């Protein structure tokens, strides 16, 4: 996909001015946040489970090589094939060679962020294979040639009317005067169109929420049932998953699924949690004849050995973006690559480079809501701060910010001068605004005063008040 992260600021400006988008984003706040809060309140053990889940992932990451090997052994024993891919290109090549060997024409796909990460759909199209997204949201954005704007609700940026327009444009064999004014009618139309695609597909590709070392199993968590039809109907089922999806035991999966759906959609558990182990057995009347699992690294081993290791605990629930004031204001596309929101601000610089994505970890108010709701207790603001440090070290921050910081540091390193200067500045700003109490414009603060007034200081500096308080005590 096209990377637009470098123009983040421009993207954000456009997103703020996009009225359709702003209307669609209105559904995010009530839909996700309230439902999550209710589900969490109904489970007194939620925080204890967060601790348990964090510990499971930390333990797994510390023994990742061994759990990968154990997983492989079990999966081979069940008749499945394992393929490692160091890079996105290598993953694409493995998938293509499997598809070409069986002469596949159409491929159905369950929702997979890894498939987005490796740009699988474009790659298929270049090689004459038609990929069909089957998750309703993914199907809608595929029709519109768009990227997902949310990791669990890919079409969250669209309104019902936009979906209707896309269906009318794409499903030309249906009567043009049909009624599509209700979401139910849109859903039914997608259901019947996609049912034919499911039946015709040669290969089904899904992601995985977990790869279970105990049994050699891949697990998908879905609501629609499309992932299941994707993996049981075609001759070949390919799973594409990254190394950190390894989970030691089924019981460990049980701990984490109690967090996943509650954090994502506010459900106690999603409708379908499906455990797949190998191809169909000799006595089975249905299921795929071949089962392949592609285990992708694509830069994750570098994260494992760095200060960004904790981001590998992420289970892709989307809670951080749902609760992020920046995401709520601009949606997912402005972030410019596959993963939006706070977790995207941490992952994207790793994948496409901090020189390309340096704006993302800066697009945060550090309010801390993302960390407060993260089921895996990932310290997202801290990880974003690490990127800001790296950006500064590599002289990638804008000149104004660097000079500004240098200017401030000059005073900050000289406490007496600093106190004198701030005192003086407060007095001047305070005196000049007498009667108004605010500034409509200020030199060097245009970025602030363009959108709101700058309140004039009243009285003394923080340090003066602090000192006075200490004396009083």
């Amino acid at each position, binding site marked *: 996909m096209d990377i637009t992260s470098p123009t983040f600021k421009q993207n954000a400006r456009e997103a703020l001015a996009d009225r359709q988008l702003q209307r669609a984003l209105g559904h995010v706040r009530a839909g996700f946040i309230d439902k999550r809060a209710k589900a969490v309140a109904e489970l007194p053990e939620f925080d204890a489970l967060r601790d348990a889940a964090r510990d499971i992932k930390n333990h797994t990451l510390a023994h990742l090589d061994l*759990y990968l090997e154990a997983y492989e052994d*079990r999966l081979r024993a069940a008749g499945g094939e394992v393929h490692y891919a160091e890079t996105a290109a290598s993953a694409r090549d493995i998938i293509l060679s499997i598809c070409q060997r069986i002469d596949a024409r159409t491929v159905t796909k369950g929702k997979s962020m890894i498939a987005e990460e490796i740009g699988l759909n474009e790659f298929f199209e270049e090689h004459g294979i038609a990929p069909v997204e089957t998750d309703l949201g993914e199907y809608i954005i595929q029709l519109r040639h768009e990227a997902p704007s949310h990791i669990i609700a890919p079409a969250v940026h669209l309104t019902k009317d936009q979906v209707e327009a896309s269906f009318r444009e794409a499903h030309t064999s249906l009567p043009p005067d049909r009624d599509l004014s209700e979401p139910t009618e849109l859903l039914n139309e997608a259901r019947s169109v996609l049912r034919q695609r499911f039946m015709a597909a040669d290969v089904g590709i899904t992601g995985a929420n977990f790869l279970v070392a105990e049994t050699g199993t891949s697990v998908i968590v879905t609501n629609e049932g499309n992932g299941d039809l994707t993996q049981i109907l075609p001759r070949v089922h390919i799973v594409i998953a990254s190394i950190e999806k390894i989970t030691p035991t089924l019981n460990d999966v049980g701990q984490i699924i109690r967090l996943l759906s509650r954090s994502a959609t506010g459900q106690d558990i999603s409708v379908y949690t499906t*455990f797949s182990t190998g191809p169909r057995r000799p006595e089975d009347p249905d299921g795929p004849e071949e089962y392949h699992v592609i285990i992708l690294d694509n830069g994750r081993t570098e994260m494992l050995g760095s200060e960004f290791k904790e981001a590998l605990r992420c289970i892709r629930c989307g809670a951080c973006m749902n609760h992020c004031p920046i995401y709520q204001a601009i949606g997912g596309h402005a972030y410019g690559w596959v993963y939006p929101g706070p977790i995207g601000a941490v992952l994207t610089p790793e994948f496409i480079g901090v020189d390309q994505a340096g704006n993302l970890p800066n697009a945060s108010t550090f309010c801390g809501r993302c960390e407060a709701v993260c089921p895996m207790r990932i310290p997202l603001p801290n990880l974003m701060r690490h990127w800001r440090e790296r950006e500064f070290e590599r002289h990638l921050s804008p000149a104004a910010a660097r000079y500004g910081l240098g200017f401030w540091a000059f005073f900050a390193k000289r406490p007496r001068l600093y106190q004198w200067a701030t005192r003086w500045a407060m007095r001047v700003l305070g005196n000049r605004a007498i009667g108004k109490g605010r500034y409509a414009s200020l030199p060097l603060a245009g970025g602030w005063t363009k959108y709101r007034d700058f309140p004039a200081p009243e009285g003394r500096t923080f340090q003066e008040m602090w000192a006075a308080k200490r004396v009083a005590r």
Partner: protein
Amino acid sequence: MSDRDIVLGKVRRALAVDSGDVGRRAITIARLEGTPRGVIPARGQLPHEEQVALFIKMAEKVSSSVVRVGETGEVPRAVAEYLRKHNLPATLRIGDDPLFADMPWGETQIEMSHGPSDGNDAVGLSHAVGGVAETGTLVLTSGPDNPTTINFLPETHVVVIKATEIAGDYESAFDALRERYGRNSLPRTVNFVTGPSRSGDIEQTILLGAHGPRRLHIVVVG
């Protein structure tokens, strides 16, 4: 070097470990064999009869419909009544599960057909090997007895579960699977099903019947 060796090598370098470390291996083997249970919510830790009641309550909360009958012999009439009430055709697609073979289907007008679904069946009938009270979740396993396609293709899915097969939590359901299929192995597909299929992808409005069944009806026996 293969991608496998490269990736595993990079993992070990990142962790600063080497593959011959016996102590680390022992730790992972202990976890894989010991399968520790972790934090189990109190919600499902109840006397069995209350677990069955919780299972029914939670299943109804996610829009499954539930009926309870006294014994297996009553299942055909309960299913026939459900189909009649919802104006559904009196046909059922089933696998070879012996539980169904012994039931008096002759007492009803239902037409039975056997084997996996090809998408042309209005109603499928399955036997769940387990249930989880905590969330009203059914546990279904693949194989000739209950082909997985029946769980997803028909618009209406009717599932029979024995009350004795309902447990409090997921971990107990996993234990039951380990007992039935042996440790370290599972059938090709295990489906945890909690309610009929749904989607919230259009303006966050939850709609039932996305790609899987529009209706999920559970018959609890005993």
